[in-house]
């Protein structure tokens, strides 16, 4: 399938921690793409009420407890989210977000399966093609934002991060003229870069 005909959703989550089994999603940001066009108009952001709270993380995200208590639980928005997550999931170290989402959907009785594109892996793959092997530091979201000349306006907000991931992907694909989705996905299977250090 041509890249221009595919749909992507750039996703970024805030969670209470990094342990998929123990921690909960507290915020979800989605920025959809038609082909390589970023549909800012359909960008989506919501807080999610967690089952349990870990105050330390929340301090870090700048999300206050009160808003979280008023937020809908995941089950309540699961159908809406499912409809919004059409196409390939895109993100920075999206594997981790994917696992959190899968588990949350599963708890809501929904099977959730998507192809993934991790922009850090794309960067590594492009690096191989151009014989530059980026190290782990160069693959952090901050480093990518800088490399692609995108100013950091509001970091550590899920919606901003999801948007930046989409924009980085847009530039990566346009600059390197990658036309086909399957070609891209196949190439990425060989790249495994995403470990937890990238999450922040």
């Amino acid at each position, binding site marked *: 399938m041509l890249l221009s005909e595919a749909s992507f959703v750039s996703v970024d989550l805030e969670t209470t921690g990094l342990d998929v089994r123990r921690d909960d999603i507290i915020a979800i940001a989605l920025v959809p793409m038609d082909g390589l066009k*970023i549909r800012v108009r359909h960008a989506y952001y919501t807080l999610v009420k967690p089952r349990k709270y870990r105050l330390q993380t929340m301090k870090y995200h700048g999300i206050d407890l009160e808003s979280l208590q008023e937020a809908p639980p995941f089950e309540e928005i699961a159908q809406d989210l499912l409809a919004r997550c059409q196409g390939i999931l895109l993100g920075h170290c999206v594997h981790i977000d994917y696992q959190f989402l899968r588990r949350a959907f599963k708890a809501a009785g929904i099977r959730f399966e998507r192809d993934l594109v991790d922009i850090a892996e794309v960067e590594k793959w492009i690096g191989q093609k151009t014989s530059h092997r980026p190290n782990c530091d160069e693959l952090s979201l901050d480093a990518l934002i800088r490399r692609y000349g995108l100013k950091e306006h509001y970091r550590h907000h899920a919606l*901003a991060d999801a*948007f930046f991931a989409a924009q980085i992907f847009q530039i990566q694909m346009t600059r390197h003229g990658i036309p086909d989705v399957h070609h891209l996905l196949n190439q990425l299977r060989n790249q495994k870069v995403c470990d937890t250090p990238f999450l922040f």
Partner: protein
Amino acid sequence: MIPPKEFLRRIKPFSFLREEHLNALTGSLDVAMYGAGEVLFSKDEVCPFVFLVFSGLVGLYDGDELVDLVSKGEIFGLLSALHRTPSYYEARALEDTICYLIDAEAFEKVYQAHSAFASFFSTFIERRFRSFARLARQEESMQDGATTVLVESLVGKAPVTCAPGNSVREAVSIMDAHGVGSVVVVEGEKPVGILTNRDMRRVLVHGSPESFVKDFMSTPVITLDRQASVLEAYTTLLRTGIDHLVVMDRDRVYGVVTSKDVLAQMEPSSSILAIYRKVLKAVDLDELKSAFHAIRVAVSEMALKGVHFYQLSQMITSVYDTVVIRVLQKHTDPHEAKNFVWIHTGSSGRKEQILTTDQDSAIICGTAGPCLDAAEAVTHSLESVGIPRCPANYMASNPRWHLSFDQWKENFRQWFLEPTPDHVRYLTVFLDMRAVYGNGQLLGRLLNAIHESVTNQAVRFLAYDAALHEPPIGIFGIKHRDRGLDLKKYGIYPIANGIRVMILANRMLSVTNTRERIEALRDAGALGKDTAGDLLEAYAFLQDLRLRQQARAVKQGRSEANLIMADQLDKMDLLVLKESLKVVASFQKNLKARYGVDRGL
């Protein structure tokens, strides 16, 4: 939260928008990327979006001709999108380019709802650059006040009046009863004079309390409409050197403002009036020199505060002329004054010098006149005051430009007959002649002689010269965006020179100021109303831009540069600069066609 909104928020005119409107725009926005060479939309296609460039470079093409370049923070496709009309150009990415695409409908809604935002675009479309710049500098001009505060706000009291036939005693008791220092003398409702405390000194010596007011009042009165700005009041005070202005409400006296009232509003520009007085009272060259230096600093301050070129150049011309007159009075015999006329040429002749002043002068001697030595003494004194010599030596102290009436007449005749490059250059300088001191009739006679000896051939050569330097497309070119643009060469001179050609062809040389020339040509029907409007706007903007640039240089103690760099301009200025240069280019085309330059020389 979402980065595109933050990007919009930092760009004029989006920065004028409230949160809800910004949300409406981001809520109907896509971000697209185009590889180099890709076409964004074609000619004759109705543009579905308003495009805003986030990064990269887009060329707008009419066929193969590159019409404009747009880069980061700039908008295109607006007219086609808003009016649903086919685009008159094709947009092509010249580099990898990222654009924000804003739905035409959403854009239009915001446009309708927000007047400042809308006027940004409509003034732009109608090319009213001055109101545009005012919009851009809204906050700054608020601070400055002088350009926005109306003179009526300075009037604290109802007018105190008396009749010409009243006695001075009666007038004084009226003044005392109202606690004022002046009384407006009216005939019916019409002000015919003003009697102030100062006039009492003359009453004391030459009159008595029973004298008629009309014999001692200052007359004529200088009036100003109540809707005039404080700055206008200020320039009027400067020009006339008086202390009281009568403020009018149509035909009725509305009140009186004094120079003190005006000055209180004018910090720090009040220093110019103070300096001006210093120039008038200076007894030696050192005092003139310190005043002249002070004025450059004060002018820079005002330029940076948003006072416009036209207003500043008026003030500076008054001061500069006064300095020259003071020096001339020192070096010449007052009886000689009717036998020669001291002339300013070039930009000083056009009353357009502000910060970069140098001596562009000439002299027409009548039957007698100051000798060359006297002219050299004047030039030398002016130099020590701080007005540098003209590098090309277009000065009255140069024997070539220190001529009798007949010699000048012969010069022009020859220049018109043989428009060699040198002669064209002389014409460019000496067709802007303005009398500063001495017998102005000599110049008037010379202008008549010039009008009679103009040749079509010379007009064509001058038109060719004015149209020689076409402004670069997209201003900073594709390759030379880092190199900067010479505002003088590509913007200011083509207009000033082109307008001079038309003034010459229409035999109207007694008008020297470019703005006044454009207005005169318009009123005489030689320039279309729209063209004249465009030219006035473009010229004012280019001069303002150059002035601010020079003011910044003076303030930072750098040498003055005419080059303007793209990255020193905010987006608004860049946009208007581009439009102004389009006005210049079309004016040049027009000139070439009108004077047959295209057919070759």
